[in-house]
């Protein structure tokens, strides 16, 4: 009799300890959102996952961050050892070998260039450098008009960047002249997000969100609930104007004139450059958000839409099935495609 009860004592005490530990939030749980934030791609990148134990979540997030860091080393023209930098430093007008990974991203960028009839380009690095928006010490006034005119005269528009695949399957790239240099900033962030999501999925994470400075992609949900995404007011950064309840596999990329800009003589100069003018796009828009499944593609699409404006941009949107957009103009007026997931908040 006594030994029977003794058998129960230890399990009861252990169960009691576990209950207390659970109550005190000491045990790893899977029904919470677990997040980590790092500096990457010139911005804050936050990965949040749901539905996996803490240790597994941390491992998966760590691997995803490492993958983003690796991609940054390949894609960022600012990085001294990046493949893009090496191509930019090489000779112009000749075919140069390029890795398959970089080639596929350039190919995607060229697709957006073609669809947008040159309103978007992955060959604007010299112009980007001229404007200095990516610099640690950005300009406070526009570059001299003569410099922009000189760039514009030399820039070969649709022929700026060319890509080919040889019979042996190897890719080659050609930058037409010195006015051209690779800058994959407008598709690279989306690509890094897509790749990091793939890493999470390989690690068994099926519910997650990766947010890279306001460009994001979600997979799955938070249990029964969708991911809840706010959209920043283009002119009042502390205010959220809408919510998008996203679940499944949805990316949401935003281009706006309020992230990197300066005001000179009362005029706003922002970082989204129009390859046709050499100046920041003046399409009458302050913000463009695009939703779709492929973050890389809609990353470029949001930039192209911003440059084109509402009237010319909507046909481009229609040419990319599965993409939806919300455009906000300088007066705060909104144009959105039918399938854009959004609920407007009372202001």
């Amino acid at each position: 009799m006594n030994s029977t009860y003794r058998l129960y004592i230890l399990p009861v005490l252990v169960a009691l300890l576990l209950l207390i530990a659970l109550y005190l939030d000491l045990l790893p749980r899977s029904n919470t959102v677990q997040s980590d934030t790092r500096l990457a791609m010139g911005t804050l990148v936050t990965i949040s996952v749901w539905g996996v134990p803490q240790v597994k979540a941390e491992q998966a997030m760590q691997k995803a961050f490492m993958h983003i860091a690796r991609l940054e080393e390949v894609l960022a023209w600012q990085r001294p050892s990046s493949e893009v930098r090496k191509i930019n430093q090489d000779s112009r007008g000749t075919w140069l070998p390029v890795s398959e990974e970089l080639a596929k991203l350039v190919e995607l960028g060229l697709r957006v260039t073609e669809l947008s009839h040159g309103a978007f380009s992955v060959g604007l690095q010299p112009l980007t450098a001229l404007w200095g928006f990516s610099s640690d010490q950005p300009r406070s006034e526009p570059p001299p008009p003569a410099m922009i005119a000189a760039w514009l005269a030399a820039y070969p528009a649709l022929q700026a960047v060319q890509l080919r695949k040889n019979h042996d399957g190897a890719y080659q790239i050609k930058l037409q002249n010195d006015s051209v240099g690779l800058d994959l900033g407008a598709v690279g962030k989306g690509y890094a997000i897509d790749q990091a999501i793939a890493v999470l999925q390989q690690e068994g994470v099926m519910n997650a969100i990766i947010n890279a400075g306001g460009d994001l992609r979600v997979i799955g949900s938070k249990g029964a609930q969708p991911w809840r995404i706010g959209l920043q007011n283009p002119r009042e950064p502390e205010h959220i104007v809408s919510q998008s309840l996203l679940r499944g596999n949805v990316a949401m990329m935003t281009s706006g004139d309020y992230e990197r800009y300066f005001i000179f003589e009362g005029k706003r100069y922002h970082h989204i450059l129009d390859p046709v003018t050499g100046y920041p796009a003046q399409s009458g828009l302050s913000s463009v958000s695009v939703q779709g499944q492929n973050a890389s593609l809609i990353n470029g699409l949001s930039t192209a839409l911003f440059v084109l404006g509402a009237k010319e941009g909507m046909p481009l949107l229609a040419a990319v099935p599965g993409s939806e957009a919300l455009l906000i103009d300088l007066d705060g007026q909104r144009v959105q495609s039918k399938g854009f997931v959004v609920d407007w908040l009372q202001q």
Partner: protein
Amino acid sequence: MVNVCRARALLLTGCNSEMWYSTWYRAVGEMLVIVNRAMTALDRLLVLLTALTILLLVLWIAWQPKGSRAVVLLDNQIVRHLSLAEDSLTELVGHLGMVKIQVTEGRIRLLEYDSPRMIGSKTGWIQNRGAVLACIPCGILIRIDGAAENKADDMQWDGVAR
């Protein structure tokens, strides 16, 4: 009668509330007596140690405020741990030169540095567990210790598009 009523109590049927209460009261009492008789000195020691562990655990958790420490990262590598329990002023060399980090009354902020947009400074104080503060050009990220865990049903934004 006691056994019958105990069975009924288990099924939450029959017996009036007074009887139900007294039955369970007696059952628990009986159980404790039996357990006490069944325990050896070693068992009692085990119970005492477990109770002490629980007590210490509770006291430790109660004493340890959430978000009591900040982690300072430079290029995503941890370079400092700062206690938020003590006021302090820390200097750190980032990519753009010296950065000052101030801790006061359990909060932390980037106080003074040279950066084009001063976004880290404009962010102001942070104090909640998981909150982050960064000067991107400086390569400095400050995070209040502890995972930023949000309950699945809370009303915070999971992400802000911008």
